[in-house]
């Protein structure tokens, strides 16, 4: 991906791995276009965002499972007012909350790719697009979404 393929301008704060190593499997998975999320090895409850303990059974034995990078739109917002210097003069952009029905309806925040002025339908099926920022000082990957089909 070249820089012009990034949905938002460069210069926003980059995602860094959690200092305590909590989300390392997730971040490693993204490098290989894999969506890997938490699932309790003991009671099989899905859990997101990551935490050290299962909220259902209190097991510390949390597994990480690859899931299909698809979902549906649970909610959305279109941001107009720039609150960061990198967004000045950029114009509107869409942030969407995506739920993953095949993984216990866990939700993830990402951008909805395409026309920033598009009409958005809650419940619409979406698929993930892995946006690799390999040229960043500390390379990282964002999970973006686009309407499926």
């Amino acid at each position, binding site marked *: 991906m070249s820089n012009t393929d990034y949905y938002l301008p460069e210069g*926003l704060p980059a995602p860094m791995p959690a200092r305590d190593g909590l989300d390392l499997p997730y971040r490693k998975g993204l490098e290989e276009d894999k969506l890997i999320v938490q699932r309790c090895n003991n009671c099989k409850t899905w859990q997101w*965002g990551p935490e050290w303990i299962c909220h259902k059974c209190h097991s510390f034995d949390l597994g990480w499972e690859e899931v299909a990078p698809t979902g549906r739109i649970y*909610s959305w917002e279109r941001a107009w007012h720039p609150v960061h210097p990198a967004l000045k003069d950029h114009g509107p952009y869409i942030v969407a909350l995506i739920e993953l029905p095949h993984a216990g309806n866990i939700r993830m925040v990402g951008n909805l790719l395409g026309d920033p002025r598009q009409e958005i339908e809650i419940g619409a099926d979406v698929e993930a697009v892995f946006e690799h920022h390999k040229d960043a000082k500390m390379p990282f990957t964002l999970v973006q979404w686009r309407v499926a089909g």
Partner: protein
Amino acid sequence: MTERTLRGKVAVAGVGETTYYKRGGAEDAEFVLALKAILAACEDAGIDPREVDGFASYSNDRNDPSRISAALGIKELKFANMQWGGGGGGGSGAVANAAAAVATGVADCVVVFRALAQGQFARFGQGPKAPGVAGEPAYTIPYGMMSPAQMFAMRCTRHLHETGVTRDTYKAVSLATYAHAQNNPRAVMYGRPLTPEKYDEARWIVEPYQLYDCCMENDGAAALLIVSADRAKDLKQKPAYILGATAGSEYRNGAPCHNAPLYATSSFTSLAPRLYEMAGIGPKDVDVLQSYENFTGGVVMSIIEHGFCSHEEANEFLTYENLLAKGGKLPLNTSGGNLAECYMHGLELITEAVRQIRGESPNQVDNAKVAMVTSGPMVTPVSNSIFGSEEVL
């Protein structure tokens, strides 16, 4: 064992505030603003500031109680309390903490205060400038979801979708609140009325919020003084008794990355019944409501979750006329609140509730005996409180 309640045990004996300024407009240091508000509340109550023996605040207020105690020559400090997390959601929580301390004899005269100088310190409404973010912010900020408006708009979109409530209710909240500020000389927006046209034509901040759905950013300080009910009776002002105050949020409201199971709420569904139970009243008994507006959508959700109307009734009930102090069914934010009086992080809503009980509001509701406050919708923890005059005890 005595009944485990705050009801009628303590009262607000004094309220005070500094001049309210636009963000960056205060010439005083933030600590000076805090001191001035505290002294004003003591003066209002007729209590020597040296008699204060406790402090409660929220949202990591920067003005440390030990420094204040030393600066004011307070005889003995007995209570130094901070409500953890939730920003403005801590307002009524700080009142609850102070009230609990006084009700149980931990302290006798506790100040609840909040001071903000956003010129001197960082602004609320901006994203972080750091090159990288870790932990939960790493899942939202790189996607451009970084300001409070952007964090809460997502909940409101879902709420509108699930319930059929329309944005006309947002407009009613904004217009009524601004209308009240026009009678309040303390209000930053005093003399700057909002018309329906001006509301409609304002730019989008983040859908579903336009400019006038969003709170201001201000400098200033406010304070109130809590003493036992017995003591309040002998002081200068008519006491505003605390009927109830609660803080907290629903099951896993803080689940990371927008995974709260009850997402389309303002976090009050579990608190509202607890508050009414402690206060021994219901929504029909509330004469006037001060509801924290970070964003108008959160006010609408709070009103519904506190049982003033159902989701089905909201579009019909939440109209401009119904929210006015004069003749409205649910007088709302009668000082102008966070939108138009001052973003004093919602403490100005609590001083206004007290003024309504005293009969001293710039938009006095006739014969107001019960005034309610909801603090900080859509965050966790949120909090709420109810104040009443002696006749409702």
